[in-house]
C-alpha cells in the first residue's frame, strides 16, 4: 500500500513516509519524518521541511518552499509559495502565483513553462488558512494570522490578523492558540496579551 524511501544510514526512524500512490519527484527535497499521503504530487524543484503532513491529493509545484511542522490538508494546491514553520492549510486551499494568467501569449501561442511572471504567496509562521480559501499571487499572510473558510485574499494580512469574506476583510485579531482576541487584545481562552506593532500584533511579555 505504501512505500518508504531508502533511509539515510543511522536515521532509519527519521525517514519520510510517502504513500505508494503519491508522486514525489526524485529531485524534490523531503525532510525527516514528513508524511505525504495518497495521490499527492510533489514536483522536482520543491523543498519540504521536517515533520510536515501533506494530505490526500495535495499538489506542490513551481519551486515552492515549505518549512518544518507544516500541515497541508487534502486537495490543496501550492504553486511556488513559501510556507514558513508551523503554518496550516485546511482542505482545498489554493496558493496562486501568476498575476496575469492566460493560456496563450499575445501572439496566440500556448504559453510555456517559462512564459510567465512568478509572484508567489508567502505564508508566515503559525498562520492558518481556512478550507477552500484562495490566496492571490504576491500576497503575504502574517504570522499567526487566521484566514476564515472560503475567504478570497487579495491583500496582505498583518500578523495575527483575522480575515474573512470575498474580498477578505479584517474583522479582528487571532491569538496563537487560534481563538479571537477580545476588545483589549487579550485571548479569552489562554489569557495571552498582545499589543499593536508595525505589522499587526505582537505578544507582550
Amino acid at each position, binding site marked *: 500500500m505504501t512505500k518508504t524511501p531508502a533511509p539515510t544510514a543511522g536515521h532509519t526512524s527519521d525517514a519520510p513516509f510517502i504513500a505508494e500512490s503519491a508522486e514525489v519527484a526524485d529531485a524534490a527535497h523531503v525532510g525527516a519524518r514528513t508524511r505525504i499521503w495518497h495521490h499527492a504530487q510533489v514536483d522536482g524543484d520543491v523543498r519540504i521541511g521536517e515533520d510536515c503532513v501533506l494530505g490526500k491529493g495535495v499538489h506542490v509545484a513551481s519551486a515552492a518552499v515549505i518549512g518544518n511542522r507544516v500541515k497541508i490538508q487534502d486537495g490543496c494546491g501550492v504553486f511556488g509559495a513559501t510556507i514558513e514553520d508551523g503554518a496550516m492549510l485546511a482542505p482545498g486551499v489554493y496558493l496562486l502565483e501568476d498575476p496575469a494568467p492566460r493560456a496563450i501569449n499575445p501572439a496566440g501561442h500556448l504559453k510555456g513553462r517559462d512564459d510567465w511572471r512568478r509572484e508567489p504567496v508567502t505564508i508566515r509562521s503559525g498562520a492558518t488558512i481556512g478550507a477552500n480559501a484562495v490566496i492571490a499571487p504576491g500576497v503575504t499572510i502574517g504570522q499567526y494570522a487566521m484566514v*476564515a473558510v472560503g475567504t478570497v485574499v487579495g491583500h496582505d494580512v498583518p500578523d495575527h490578523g483575522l480575515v474573512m*469574506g470575498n474580498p477578505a*476583510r*479584517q*474583522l*479582528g*485579531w487571532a491569538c496563537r492558540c487560534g481563538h*479571537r482576541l477580545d*476588545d483589549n487584545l487579550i485571548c479569552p481562552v489562554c489569557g495571552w496579551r498582545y499589543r499593536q506593532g508595525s505589522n499587526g500584533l505582537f505578544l507582550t511579555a
Partner: protein
Amino acid sequence: MSTHALGQQTVAQQALAEISGWPTNTITASTRLSELGLDSLDRLTLAVLLEERTGRPLPDDELISVRTLDDLERLLRPAERSA
C-alpha cells in the same frame, strides 16, 4: 445620541438588534458589541449590512476599533449627515 434621546432607532442600533437578536431598546450607546455575543462572522455581517443601508464603505482599519454602539454611530455619522 440625540436619536436615542428621542426614542428613535438608528441604523446601527437596528442592525445590531437584527444580528444579535437582542431587543433594540436594550442596546444603548455604551453597549459593547462583545456583550451582544457578536463573533467575527457577525461583525462581517454587520459591516456589509451597514454599508448596504448607508451607501458608505466602512474601512476595515476603522471598523476593527469599534467596541460599542457609540463607536459605530461615530463611524457612520458623516454618511448620515450627507444622506
